[in-house]
């Protein structure tokens, strides 16, 4: 080995050897490999060597360099290991950043939206205070329908529109169906609308304000089997793969046929228990969009059809978390909020 190289090798090794802590070692690294470092300067000399010896000199430099790097690494790991030897009580609590909490309703909304996104639905936002026409009339609910009584629905003081009627606090999200049809003009439509809704009632299972979720699907040749498949997809994602749905005949003004959608009870898994109706829990309502509703939304029912579905978010939460009183959700007791 060229004596020059040998000197550098020795010097480097001794420098490394002297390092007591990682920081020293880092300084040493600069002294060896830095801009003006030992090895760097050696490399610079290669070009000045007689061409016939240059190759072997270069090789020697490289092998020296390799040796130093290995030596360095060894030293480094020995320093790391020896850094701290006091025994730690690993059961003591870690230092963590305090996280906050999302409201249960938001958590449910996020899950639902994620699932329907996979099926190509997009989240839209429609008025929570809307004209009577959007909330009732266009949804095939006649003037004398009980929901249109001021017994059940909140009305707004003041303005009436000659075409659209009074302003109402929407008692459901279905006004979004009409708004979406008007916006989209031409199917296909795959929409989700989630909003605060209002009804004039309060008890263990009702609050005057609640959240509803609405889905609308309009296209050509849509069938009941499509609606079934959509609900199966949702249920297995939201409640888990063991839960199944069923459709029961029901009645809503804005769908024909109409269905109640049930999901197998998560407690008894469909066997029947005190929390469910013979093994089933009601999830929500659905149905094939009534031709009159499509027509009101400016869509030709001879060409297109579709389905719609909706349910109360709080209900699904109560089903998932065994909440005994829905009013707890809006009392905003911090001890409640921080549970989730």
């Amino acid at each position: 080995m060229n004596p020059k190289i040998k000197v550098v090798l020795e010097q480097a090794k001794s420098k490394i050897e002297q390092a007591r802590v990682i920081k020293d070692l880092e300084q040493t690294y600069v002294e060896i490999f830095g801009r003006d470092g030992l090895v760097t300067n050696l490399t610079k000399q290669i070009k000045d060597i007689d061409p016939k010896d240059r190759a072997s000199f270069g090789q020697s430099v490289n092998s020296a360099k390799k040796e130093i790097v290995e030596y360095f690494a060894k030293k480094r790991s020995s320093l790391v290991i020896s850094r701290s030897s006091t025994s730690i009580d690993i059961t003591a609590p870690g230092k963590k950043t305090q996280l906050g909490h999302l409201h249960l309703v938001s958590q449910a909304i996020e899950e639902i939206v994620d699932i329907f996104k996979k099926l190509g639905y997009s989240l839209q936002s429609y008025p929570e205070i809307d004209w009577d026409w959007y909330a009732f009339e266009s949804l095939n609910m006649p003037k004398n329908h009980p929901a249109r009584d001021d017994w059940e629905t909140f009305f707004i003081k003041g303005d009436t529109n000659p075409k659209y009627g009074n302003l109402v606090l929407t008692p459901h999200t279905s006004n979004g169906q009409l708004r979406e049809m008007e916006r989209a003009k031409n199917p296909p439509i795959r929409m989700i609308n989630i909003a605060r809704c209002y009804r004039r009632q309060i008890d263990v299972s009702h609050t005057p304000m609640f959240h509803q979720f609405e889905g609308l699907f309009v296209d050509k040749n849509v069938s009941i089997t499509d609606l079934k498949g959509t609900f199966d997809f949702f249920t297995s994602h939201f409640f888990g793969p063991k839960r199944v749905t069923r459709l029961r005949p029901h009645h809503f003004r804005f769908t024909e046929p109409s269905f109640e959608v049930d999901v197998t009870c998560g407690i008894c898994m469909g066997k029947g228990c005190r929390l469910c109706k013979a093994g089933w829990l009601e999830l929500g309502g659905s149905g094939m969009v009534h031709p009159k509703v499509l027509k009101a939304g400016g869509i030709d029912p001879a060409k297109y059809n579709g389905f719609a579905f909706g349910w109360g978010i709080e209900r699904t939460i109560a089903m998932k978390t065994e909440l005994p009183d829905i009013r707890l959700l809006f009392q905003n007791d911090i001890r409640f909020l921080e549970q989730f």
Partner: protein
Amino acid sequence: MNIQIPVSWLRDYLKTDVAAKTVANYLTASGPSVERIEKHGEDFIFDVEITTNRPDAFSVYGLAREANAILATNGQKSQLVPPKGLNTKLDPDKSHSLPLDVQVKDKSLCQRFAAIVIDNVQIKPSPAIIKNRLETCGIRAINNIVDISNYIMLELGQPMHTFDYDKIRGAKMTLRESQARESIRTLDGQNRKLPKGTIVIEDSERLIDLCGIMGGENSGVSTRTKRVVLFVQSYDPIRIRKTTQALAFRTDASARFEKGIDLEGIIPALSRAVYLAKQTAGAKVVSELIDIYQKAEKPKPIILNISKLNSYIGVEIPEEKAGKTLEFLGFKVSSTSQTITATPPTWRFQDMEIEEDLIEEIARIYGYHNLPSTLPKGEVPKTEESILANVIELKNALKYLGLTEIISYSIISKEFLKLTQLEEKDAVELQNPLSTDWQFMRNTLVPSLTNVVAQNQNLKSNIKLFEVAKTYLRVTNDIPTQDVHIAFALQNSNFLEIKGLVENLFEILKREPKFQKAGGKNPLSENSQFATIKIGDKIVGGLGILKREVADYFDIAGDTFVAEINLSTVYNLQSTVHTYHPMPKFPPVIEDMSVIFDEKTPVAEIVSEAKKIGSPLVKNVEIIDIFRNGKIGKGKKSITLRLSYQKSDSTPEQEEVTRYREIIAREISRIFQAQVRK
């Protein structure tokens, strides 16, 4: 609405060997849902939910008819046997008949009015089977005549009433709308003040019936009754509902009248009543049948296209099977290879209008559980999502920043509204609030958040809350503005903490906010510690300390800081796009400079001036310390600026740095009348 049906009674009309539980399963899958089955001695009782469009199934016989159609279509042996006496002759049994003068003032009140008088009635308890059935269904048995009316209501779904003929003064019944301030004492002994427009019957002197709801006490059947008017009607459902609501008084009868009655079922029900009265009370018919009938429109045939049926249901249903299903349900059916023409039975006339109605009948009886599940094919629409999709992400980010989300009612009280200083005429006000606590739609979230801080203030000392919700502001002749707001409330906090939070928020939102000291009216914050938030020239919100009066209103101790930002506005503004800047090849020279300023000098201005003066060599100016003490003087503050001098092509030379430092020190001292510390 739910109805309790003893299975043994159902089996009087539904002749089948199928087990009760199986019948229930068939019904739930294809018709009205049997929600519970209860064992009752040897018998079972079905608790059945009947939807409002199916009043025809709200009776034992109606449900039997429905069950029979389902069972028969699905290949089960089953037969429907009607109750006895539906076709009983209603001719008088005596030659000289008793008079009863009936007048219906307004035909819209009552589409069909049928009555007949019976004599020779022996009042006694009903036979055990009738008594037991009534009691199983929750109706107290009274005597054989009164029980007939309740029995028929449960059996056929047709409510009826019985009067003591001898108590009807003048043998006269006038059916009319009530006037203002009329009242009647009903059979339950209650005096009821009637709202105007209630359907009532009066005899020659007084009101004797609160129609469709409950009879009058003055004309009821008693143990001494000999002659009885059997009375079967249909009433205008809307008027009945209005009255029951106004009186907050509903009965089994009114529930049925509200849903509508099969007009063609009225005479069979009366016949059945006569049959039972003859059987159980030895009665004889002593009047002509009174039948005042406003004939309803005849049910129209509906034409169903077979290909539409199949496309809608998603499987092929043989045309013959479809037709049979409708026939079992009582439709008159004729069909070709392409279409089915079906005329609904009279008991379904309200409910059957269009092709889709027939599709529902065929599909449900076929069984939704027999249909496969498919996911819709077709194109996914290219639709832009609303800002609510972004809000979901935003909420998550805030949670990780340590904030807790609340959801509070959007309806607020007059007092809350007053705190916001929004004038009532600009607020959205409910016409029919539940209580004064919920009267206005809020235009700001801050009072509600503050309220939640107050509620929880003894549980924690550093509550950090946020809420995202629509707010509502009145617009003349249009729907209210409904912008999405986000608001924060920090308990025991300070201005810089909430400002930092808002700055974090805008980093997440990828917009650059500017904070401006605002004068003017701030209903919820003290002006001294309040800033408006701007993006470009647009005001998007504000932040500051909660106003003393508001804190006092909620009884909050300590300093609460609040912020509210209009997300609808923010999301509509262009977001900042980050483009690539090459990483600096040469390290900066970093120096600190401490300067004493007047207390009032805004830090943001100092930083921006220093940057301006130091350009281009000074790449960054940070504030690393602010302090005040007696040494530097009253009304003064010392600020340490950290200056980074940096070049892209080399490390700055010391002379260059010195030169810039001196210029900055000189200019800052001059502009702000400040004093650079040595």
